[in-house]
């Protein structure tokens, strides 16, 4: 029997989630029930599927030789970090992948679990867990073929730690897909002022410009932690049509595809870094 209305006791947030920012978590908690309204607060994320799903799908198809008719991602294990209500996990599941979605906000996981439960095929292919990335590292070393971290890295407290953990749970030659927002004057004007305060494309307070990540910095962190960056591509949202498209300029939103090195990964015995990140002085061009 599905017992959807039994509320589990909330675990208090542990302070050892060093890549999770508790202020960020609170923001998303308030909107947990709005995820699946295609025309609501998360409309832009829903329509982002129109470009990010084909991007992931086609990249993975081009790297593999077998193709299962009707299930292009069959046999691929994907970790969706910061899965929210499951907006990206579900399409990946429908394409045949085995998806594990993690999110520190329990209400999000509850919403995601409930939404997938109506479709028996998805219910089997997707597993959700309320957890941070660090918490699953130990039990998931080199487990996943693919990690997707879409619209997540601009919310994490420690980006390098996050990338190190991604490397640990990824199989060698595994793929990492990131979509995020650049830190530029343009992204402040359009991404914060216009998108949040004026047009309400994004719920107000969602983003903190200080945490936006320039692609140069992201590339540097990836390359110095065992990844090889294969693709960086700009993304552009058209608020009038409500649709996304690919663009040359990465001054606003952009997507990255990186591949973990094929050599066996070495386990890091050193404790995670707690120093504040030195941000690169050069911001992206406007």
């Amino acid at each position: 029997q599905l017992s959807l209305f039994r509320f589990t006791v909330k675990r208090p947030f542990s302070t050892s989630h060093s890549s999770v920012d508790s202020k960020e978590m609170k923001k998303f908690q308030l909107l947990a029930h709005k995820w699946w309204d295609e025309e609501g607060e998360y409309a832009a994320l829903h329509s982002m599927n129109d470009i990010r799903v084909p991007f992931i799908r086609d990249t993975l198809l081009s790297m593999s030789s077998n193709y299962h008719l009707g299930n292009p991602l069959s046999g691929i294990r994907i970790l969706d970090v910061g899965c929210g209500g499951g907006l990206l996990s579900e399409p990946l599941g429908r394409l045949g992948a085995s998806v594990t979605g993690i999110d520190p906000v329990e209400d999000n996981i509850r919403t995601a679990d409930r939404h997938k439960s109506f479709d028996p095929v998805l219910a089997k292919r997707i597993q959700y867990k309320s957890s941070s990335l660090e918490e699953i590292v130990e039990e998931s070393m080199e487990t996943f073929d693919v990690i997707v971290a879409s619209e997540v890295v601009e919310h994490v407290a420690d980006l390098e730690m996050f990338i190190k953990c991604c490397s640990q749970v990824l199989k060698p030659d595994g793929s990492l897909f990131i979509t995020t927002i650049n830190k530029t004057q343009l992204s402040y004007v359009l991404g914060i002022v216009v998108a949040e305060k004026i047009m309400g494309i994004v719920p107000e307070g969602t983003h903190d410009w200080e945490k936006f990540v320039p692609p140069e910095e992201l590339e540097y962190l990836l390359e110095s932690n065992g990844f090889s960056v294969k693709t960086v591509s700009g993304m552009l949202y058209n608020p009038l049509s409500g649709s996304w498209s690919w663009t040359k300029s990465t001054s606003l939103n952009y997507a990255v595809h990186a591949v973990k090195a094929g050599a066996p990964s070495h386990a890091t015995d050193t404790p995670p870094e707690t120093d504040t990140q030195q941000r690169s002085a050069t911001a992206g061009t406007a």
Partner: protein
Amino acid sequence: SSAAMAALRGRPLLAPLGARLRAGPRAPLRSAASAPPLYDVVVSGGGMVGSAMAAVLGHDIHFYDKKIALLEAGPRKDYNHLPDSYSNRVSSISPGSATLLSSCGAWDHVCSLRLKPFRRMQVWDACSEAMIVFEKDDLDDMGYIVENDVIMSALTKQLDAVADRVEVFYRSKAVGYTWPLPSHSCGTSPWVQVELADGRRLQTKLLIGADGHNSVVRKEAEIQNLEHQYDQSAVVATLHLSEATDNNVAWQRFLPTGPIALLPLSDTASSLVWSTSHDHASELLAMDEESFVDSINSAFWSNINHSDFIDAAGAMFRSAISLLKPSGSAVRQLPPSVARVDPESRAMFPLGMGHATEYVQHRVALIGDAAHRVHPLAGQGVNLGFGDIACLAHHLSAAAFNGSDLGSLKHLLRFETERQRHNVSLIAATDVLKRLYSTTLAPLVLLRTWGLQATNALPPVK
């Protein structure tokens, strides 16, 4: 006319999608164990359009692992033994429709059964000499006349070929539908619930209504339908010609009571579609076979409706055109004369036009006559339905390959926009033509005479 077209479109530019919600009972949530079987797509209506929709999806590579159901109220028909005599229900199939049927492997079956290609269409007025001829420059086939039973036989074969993906439910009339809310709240199922007459239930992520011009899906979804019953019925029959001929021309003459068309079936047989007043239609059905045949020949050959004035005006216009464009008037061919009619092949059915203001809602799409009903004078009815299928299948295939929820309005609206843009102008034009040709009033006859002659002379307009 542009106001009529705007009304036909039926929707303001930025109508909130919340307007697509229906009030009414929602399905309660059941546990997975007792829930009715869940399909990805349910097509309601097993006619030519519904069957083709199911067959095309069943043969789509991105639907390889999907579950499709086709609901047909009638029993499964045995199409294995086609009678020697032709059926009186035929359709004019455009090359585009032939391509669609090819894509699911059905066209090969049609060709191996029987069909008649035609190269030319001659359309002319009973009240004047005005005539318009359609033919392709390369003398390729313009279209095909195919019996509806032949199309159904081919589609049934192709549905059988994908029986692991497409389940056909015969003798299964859908009697009720329960609609979900788009962003579903707890306690309600997100899928469309379908209730069959025998009490069985199905759930589906997308319901496609292909259940004809009195569509139950459309009515239950509370989609407004702009409809108009013409004061005409169509009389159909299978005719035998006086002498064998190449018979690769489709003929249509506009009489004041309505257009009469002769569609080739073979070198010696043609199908009749005569749209006329209800009274005249009943008379035609009641009269003996000889009188019936005489009426048909007279309709095609008689010049009783000509007036000297119109003839003179028409002739003058024609010479003017030939000065400007010497090749602008085509050679007039003469239609074949009819010798006899197949007994038992005479039938009639009433005509009307209709257009749904919306083709889609959350988890619902309408195709074929459920979405639009048109006068047969343009020979377009089933081709519009096949065009709907090609467009919807294209969008659903892309959605499946993107892992999208098949019932999502996002791609359904794209289908609606594309098809309404195409269909509305054709339906409006057909309606206008029907009205324009239903009169003997001199000014209108002159207008259409000159209009037809001018159109015949100007390829772009044609």
